């Protein structure tokens, strides 16, 4: 009697243990499918992470990543004490804060405005046109900026001359750099950025508006009290994502617009990493600078996420 019970128990246990295995073996094809993806992530993402240790070493190509001698935090200290530290950290932070302050609200306002348009064709036209610059490459964008802002012959200076003002060589005067960077960025990506808010606006319950109309609320009041709160969770998530990359000024546009005369206003961490790493070949030092940047980014992401979590319920994780 006892034996049969034990046996039955064992049998169920077996069946149970086999269940997961059965699911795995039945789906062997799925594992075969994901294998190349798994290998891709190991090779192209996790192997470079292993390489981060050269930030704490004196990397030599002959000795390899593992064999190079340890250097402790020497490279970090050198970076913090370096001549360029203050300048590039300031440029990085000021460019991204400037971008965030100007660039973040524009897509929201654009979406709120588009949402009020009743003529479908006009709405579609504005959308098509404002999304288009997003597909222009950074190189073309930088080329356009240089053409339009060219001294004497550029459209912008032609207009200035037309109104009797002096021609300015915008690209050679460092103080214009950040504004050029930020405004061209708004021009290029505000339309595209509005898509996500438009889709959030489409999800707002029309009954709220109907009720507000009956209560005699004006259009502006309805936008302020219904539409804006309605898309607030989306705004928060976008804000977190933006803050998480606050120290992450994209390499490409700065690199392309920078020249020897505006460098002191333009050099950011990513272009500096490129310069010392790939031009001067100081691999370890450059990796240390890059690592410093990612660590700050990650701390920012966590901080902003915690703050918004406390303020309201929406958070990234």
């Amino acid at each position, binding site marked *: 009697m006892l034996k049969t019970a034990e046996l039955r128990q064992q049998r169920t246990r077996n069946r149970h243990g086999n269940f997961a295995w059965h699911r795995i073996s039945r789906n062997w094809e*799925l594992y075969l499918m994901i294998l190349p*993806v798994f290998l891709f992530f190991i090779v192209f993402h996790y192997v470079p992470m292993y390489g981060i240790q050269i930030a704490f070493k004196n990397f030599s190509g002959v000795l390899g990543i593992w064999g190079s001698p340890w250097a402790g935090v020497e490279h970090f200290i050198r970076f913090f004490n370096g001549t360029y530290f203050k300048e590039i950290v300031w440029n990085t932070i000021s460019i991204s804060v400037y971008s965030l302050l100007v660039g973040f609200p524009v897509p929201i306002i654009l979406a709120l405005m588009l949402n009020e348009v009743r003529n479908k064709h006009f709405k579609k036209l504005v959308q098509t046109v404002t*999304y288009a610059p997003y597909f222009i490459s950074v190189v*073309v964008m*930088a080329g356009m900026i*240089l053409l339009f802002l060219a001294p004497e012959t550029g*459209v912008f200076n032609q207009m200035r001359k*037309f109104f009797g003002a002096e021609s300015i060589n915008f690209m050679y005067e460092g103080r214009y750099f950040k504004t050029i960077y930020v405004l061209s960025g708004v021009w290029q990506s505000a339309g595209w950025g509005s898509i996500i808010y438009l889709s959030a606006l489409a999800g707002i319950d029309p009954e709220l508006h109907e009720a507000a109309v009956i209560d005699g609320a004006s259009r502006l009041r309805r936008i302020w009290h219904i539409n804006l709160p309605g898309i607030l969770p989306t705004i928060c998530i976008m804000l977190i994502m933006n803050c998480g990359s606050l120290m992450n000024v994209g390499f490409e546009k700065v690199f392309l617009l920078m020249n020897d005369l505006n460098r002191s206003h333009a050099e950011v961490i990513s272009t500096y990493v490129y310069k010392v790493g790939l031009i001067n070949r100081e691999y370890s030092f450059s*990796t240390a600078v890059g690592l410093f940047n990612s660590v700050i980014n990650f701390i920012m992401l966590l901080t902003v996420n915690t703050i918004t979590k406390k303020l309201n319920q929406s958070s990234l994780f």
Partner: protein
Amino acid sequence: MIARKSKDDRIFDSVNIILLVLILIIVLYPLYFIIIASFSDPLEVLAGKVFLLPKKINVEAYKMVFRDESIVTGYRNTILYTILGTAINIVMTILAAYPLSRKDFVGRGFFTLMMAITMFFSGGLIPTYLLISNTLHMQDTIWAMVLPGAVSVWNTVIMRTYFQTSIPEGLHEAAVVDGCSSTKLLLKIVLPLSKPVIAVLVLFYGVGHWNSFFNALIYLSDKDKYPLQLILRSILIQNTMSEDMMTDVDSLANRKVLAETIKYALIVVASAPIIMIYPFLQKYFVKGVMVGAIKG
């Protein structure tokens, strides 16, 4: 409910429309100017006489652009990198997204986490560079252009979400009961139903390859392998003009004038393929962003 238009409403609408028209002009004019300048006489452009319509229409600039060997080669290279790169992207993204969309896939959490981590942590520029050039020896090969970004986590999320939401769960069960294998299920049922999302991702990845220049900048030194964007950089940003363009232009002054307007034509030539197909595919782009937004 019948919308009654009050006076306030009408004022609001007019102001809104006027502001949007203004935005429309601000966005459109630079693009429009590039096009009219590229068809105008160089001297008229430099003198600031081209504003609303092209002056002394000609296609000299375009002729010069297409006479340049490096631009033609760059164009060819970019097409090659875009086609091969996008093909690899799509296959890899399907291979990642399909298993992850299956609820009965043991290890789903592990693979998802493994991919998600890479969105927040990366090795950074130098370790990646050392891997690709020193360890894998991909410098000056097409692989450095198409492999490092083979799978985008974000795009995988978009595709996985599409599989999960647009393909009924019952279909899997029915197929399993009928003895249909996962591969067959993917090829015969799932993929044919997923054409819209595949179109979106072909466009996302394709535009990315067409516009990318950073990987070419750091991994390519052989000029014959340069993609269009690197050639554009040398002409638009660094002001280098090749001799091919200028063979029958004599005086230095003339060359300088032409050098400026060639840039407009070059921008048009380089951006035309994408800007032209984009309006037709706009609804797919937008759908892609939204699918990603729902889950992300």
